[in-house]
């Protein structure tokens, strides 16, 4: 077996908390071939996507979802080869259905009705009729990593997997999916420098 293929059971989760389902990274270096024999090289940044169980309790009740997207302002200091990600607000968020009190919107702006119905499974199939809330900021109290986007300090995390240059992971998006009969699942996307 090639060196790059390893048993996932041996994956070094390090100090990462909770029940992680999957981890993947996607990185790239900004390259610009401006001359035939010279390529200008910019910073290398990446995203780390992590999926994990948000709770160890099987959900009973209606399905639910919550999400948030955090805007980071990026500025590059090429004199010192340093990328600065500047926190610029708690981010657009939405929540619908029953999320087991795992998440709540910090600042609700609007709410409206949403439906999801399909008779493809027969007339006895269930449909959902819920309220969706749109706003800014999300306070997430589930696992494996809880956070609040309301304050800068609560959306940066230690680099559990040692990706990139080892600097902090910055939460850029998150979504929580809660389905009846299943464990709630949290999906995180972090940005990092390499």
């Amino acid at each position, binding site marked *: 077996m090639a060196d790059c293929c390893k048993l996932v059971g041996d994956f070094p989760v390090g100090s990462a908390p909770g029940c992680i389902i999957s981890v993947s990274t996607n990185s790239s270096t900004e390259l610009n071939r401006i001359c035939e024999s010279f390529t200008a090289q*910019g910073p290398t940044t990446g995203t780390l996507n992590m999926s994990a169980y948000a709770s160890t309790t099987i959900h009973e009740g209606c399905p639910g979802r919550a999400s948030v997207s955090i*805007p980071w*302002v990026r*500025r*590059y*200091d*090429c*004199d*010192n080869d*340093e990328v*600065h990600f*500047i*926190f*610029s*607000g708690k981010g657009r968020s939405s929540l619908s259905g029953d999320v087991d009190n795992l998440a709540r919107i910090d600042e609700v702006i609007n709410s409206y009705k949403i439906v999801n119905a399909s008779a493809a499974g027969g007339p006895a199939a269930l449909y959902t009729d819920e309220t969706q809330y749109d706003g800014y900021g999300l306070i997430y109290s589930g696992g494996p990593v809880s956070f609040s986007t309301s304050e800068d300090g609560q959306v940066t995390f230690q680099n559990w997997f040692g990706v990139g240059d080892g600097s902090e992971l910055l939460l850029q998006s998150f979504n929580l999916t809660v389905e009846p009969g299943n464990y709630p699942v949290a999906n995180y996307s972090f940005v990092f420098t390499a």
Partner: protein
Amino acid sequence: MALNQDIVGQRYTLRAGAPMPILGGGFALHTFMAEKNDIILSPCTTNLPSSRDFRGQGGDLMSANYNRVLDTSGNIFSGNKVKEPTYIDEDAIYSGGSGGGFIECTSLNISYDVLGLVTITYTVVSESAGFNVRGTIQAGGQTFTGWVTSATVNQIPFTSWYETHVTMITTTADSY
């Protein structure tokens, strides 16, 4: 940031004529102090200024500009207004900020004219307010020295960081 909450930025403009070549090399720039204006940024406001707020009618505003924001009320505007200038010493800009921060990589632009005068523009990103300018720029094997002719500092919206947009008129160090 709440509705009708403003951000105060500042603009510095050197009161100067065009640089004049000096016999034997170099240039002279005659200056007559500098102007400093407060620029009031209003990301979301319901209050537009009255004509009477402008200097021509006894107020203290020089200009203002607003665009309507997409909102169900139809009455939210985003824009800015420029207050009347105060006159300051030319070199006050060099002590106006911390001198910290960094020059955003691709903001640096260097433009030469036929006389060898070099206009340089750049943006300094900093965590501290005030004019964070550089009096000297080193780039491409040259040292550019001269005067800041204009600078504008404003807070990056929704952050605690600041950007100073700077324009300088310079020559390379070997032309003195």
